[in-house]
């Protein structure tokens, strides 16, 4: 109790530091830069922060970290923009946002989708910050419980709660997911240090980055699909309504349950080393199963935007906690921020909260303010971004192609990736037209590698015994949850049968 009171005193001081006019200005600059970074696919939060890191060396550590974390928030906000408008997620955790966000944009509701995405991001992040404020040191300890087996269990849970959701033929869903796993396996095998599936081709050393696949499958594939409809299709779609923000806000409160659930999923996944991507997929998968409108998910349901965005941002924010308290980054961007902290002579770890209390609480205070500043800034841009869709397709299409090519190149600074992007584009068109679901493929590319790695690390530790996944209460309960989630369609069917048969006699 005493500790919490002490924390609030620090936080109060923190607000004093963070609300310094210079720092507020830095927040605004950071958010804007972040949004630009988020909008350019491939550039991504981690790269963006890494690139701007050296620019901050001449600032005080607190100002520098405020600028950098605001770039991070901005990139988180910005990632949703391209997902909604062009079906191109800029970050792994924006993929689930495209499922309903882009259909909304196609039916002329881009403004609503963007407002819902931004607002949900804010709510998710805010929930996570409050959690950090209240129980930071306690929660940090929880992350230490996660060894390879626990990590694998979390990935398993993420997969299990997401699969089985598609309407397509099961054999097609499986092929799609397995292609994802296979692509994720290309390159260096971390556990044995061997190259695999590269066939001596140097360009394949790096494997297939998820972003290249996604830019191609979703972005280029979408352009090709749109072309079928002819050039006139776009243009007229979006109507610009400056009041769209208010109108959307009125509809959001009824999704409070989804929101709260996604916040909890996000915070939990953010603290465990699994991070934002599984959080967003899990939240989407669960919302789809639980929601009344679940059947309509994928056709432009606003709840399908709220769920993943809230979870991703709660996770993205919560991931800051293990970084500060343990020195273990919960996301690539956090890893770069961590490097920044070290350069300023701040060593994240158990002692940071004690030795550098002022810095830590200044940072936490800046999270509150930064997110509020961010929300206001990005909401004002909603009509602007929504109006991009009014540009005729024959102008916007080549520009999107150029952006995709630049995005694909910047992921690894490799022109080969630009060629791969085009291959994925054609593949995406073909698979979509033949009713293969793309989401499982993308999920498998993003998580396949990490899941396999965690699985094999666990087995190394246990000497090859599978029992390691049931060896303690934590890992057993996550695995159990995963099994329930995976088998849920069967369980649900069983229930409805039971109910059906008991209803008949009555």
């Amino acid at each position, binding site marked *: 109790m005493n500790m919490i009171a002490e924390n609030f005193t620090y936080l109060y001081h923190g607000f004093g530091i963070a609300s310094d006019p210079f720092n507020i200005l830095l927040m605004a600059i950071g958010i804007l830069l972040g949004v630009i970074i988020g909008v350019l696919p491939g*550039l991504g939060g981690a790269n963006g922060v890494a*690139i*701007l890191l050296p620019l901050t060396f001449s600032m005080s550590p607190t100002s520098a970290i405020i600028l950098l974390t605001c770039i991070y928030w901005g990139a988180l906000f910005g990632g949703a923009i391209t997902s909604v408008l062009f079906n191109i997620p800029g970050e792994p955790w924006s993929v689930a946002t495209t499922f309903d966000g882009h259909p909304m944009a196609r039916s002329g509701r881009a403004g609503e989708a963007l407002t819902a995405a931004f607002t949900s991001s804010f709510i998710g992040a805010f929930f996570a910050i409050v959690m950090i404020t209240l129980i930071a040191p306690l929660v940090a300890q929880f992350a230490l419980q996660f060894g390879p087996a626990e990590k694998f269990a979390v990935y398993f849970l993420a997969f299990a709660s997401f699969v089985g959701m598609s309407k397509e*033929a099961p*054999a*097609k869903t*499986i*092929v799609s997911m*397995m*292609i994802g*796993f*296979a692509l994720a*396996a290309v390159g260096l095998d971390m*556990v*044995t240090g*061997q*190259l*695999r*599936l590269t*066939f001596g081709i140097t360009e394949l050393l790096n494997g297939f980055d998820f972003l290249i696949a996604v830019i191609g499958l979703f972005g*280029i594939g979408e*352009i*090709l*699909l749109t*072309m*079928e*409809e*002819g*050039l006139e299709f776009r243009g007229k779609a979006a109507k610009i309504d400056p009041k769209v923000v208010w109108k959307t806000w009125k509809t959001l409160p009824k999704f409070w349950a989804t929101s709260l659930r996604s916040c909890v999923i996000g915070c939990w996944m953010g603290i465990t080393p699994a991070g934002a991507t599984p959080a967003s997929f899990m939240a989407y998968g669960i919302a789809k199963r639980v929601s009344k409108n679940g059947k309509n998910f994928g056709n432009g349901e606003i709840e399908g935007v709220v769920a993943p965005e809230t979870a991703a941002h709660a996770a993205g924010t919560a991931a800051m906690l293990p970084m500060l308290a343990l020195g273990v980054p919960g996301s690539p961007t956090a890893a770069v921020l961590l490097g920044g902290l070290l350069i300023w002579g701040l060593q994240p770890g158990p002692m940071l909260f004690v030795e550098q209390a002022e810095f830590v609480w200044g940072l936490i205070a800046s999270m509150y303010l930064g997110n509020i500043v961010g929300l206001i800034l990005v909401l004002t841009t909603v009509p602007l971004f929504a109006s991009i869709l009014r540009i*005729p397709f*024959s*102008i916007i299409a*080549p*520009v999107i*192609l*150029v952006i995709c*090519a*630049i995005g694909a*190149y*910047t992921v690894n*600074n490799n*022109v080969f990736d*630009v*060629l791969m*992007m*085009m291959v994925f*584009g*054609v593949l995406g*068109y073909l*698979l*979509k*037209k*033949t*009713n293969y679901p793309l989401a499982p493929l993308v999920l498998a590319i993003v998580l396949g590698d990490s899941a*396999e790695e965690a699985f*094999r690390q666990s*087995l*190394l530790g246990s*000497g*090859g015994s599978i029992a390691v996944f049931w060896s303690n209460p934590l890992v057993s309960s996550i695995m159990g949850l995963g099994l329930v989630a995976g088998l849920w369609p069967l369980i649900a069917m069983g229930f409805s049968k039971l109910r059906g048969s008991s209803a008949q006699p009555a």
Partner: protein
Amino acid sequence: MEQSHHGAGSGPKQRVVEVGTALLTMLFGLIVIYGSVLVGYGWSSDGPQAGFFPFYVGLIICLCSLINVVLGLREDPEAIFAEYSQLRQVLKVLIPACIYVALVPEFGIYVPSVALILVFMIWLGKYRWPLSLAVAFGVPAFFYITLERWFLIPLPKGPIEAMLGL
């Protein structure tokens, strides 16, 4: 999803494309199996070898592709994949895009981008030259300034940029 909207045009049959796609995924599966066998796919003393997972992934791809071939053959033989007129539209984008991508390694990203936008706007969009030129040069210039100047991210460049000393 959109395939049968347009009613009675002629075009390649959905069935053919379905079977073709399934054969393609099967080929992919076989390549994966081959690659896994190269690095060893057994279960050694300390857990699975490098090729263990990819091997079974490849196997599952092949099996499910087989199912998809069968399912594909059972599809409605009349349904078409897309009308030829639609495919022509798609090719109008695809061919310039492929040429664009093929030019990037040799000429960098800027010059092909200018050409791509010009071709699109003038040939497909029927815009006038002044607007087309403005967009075609404006967009790459914007990326040059933001990426190379502000964010210090070098993009691929070709002989023309080298001549200009950029």
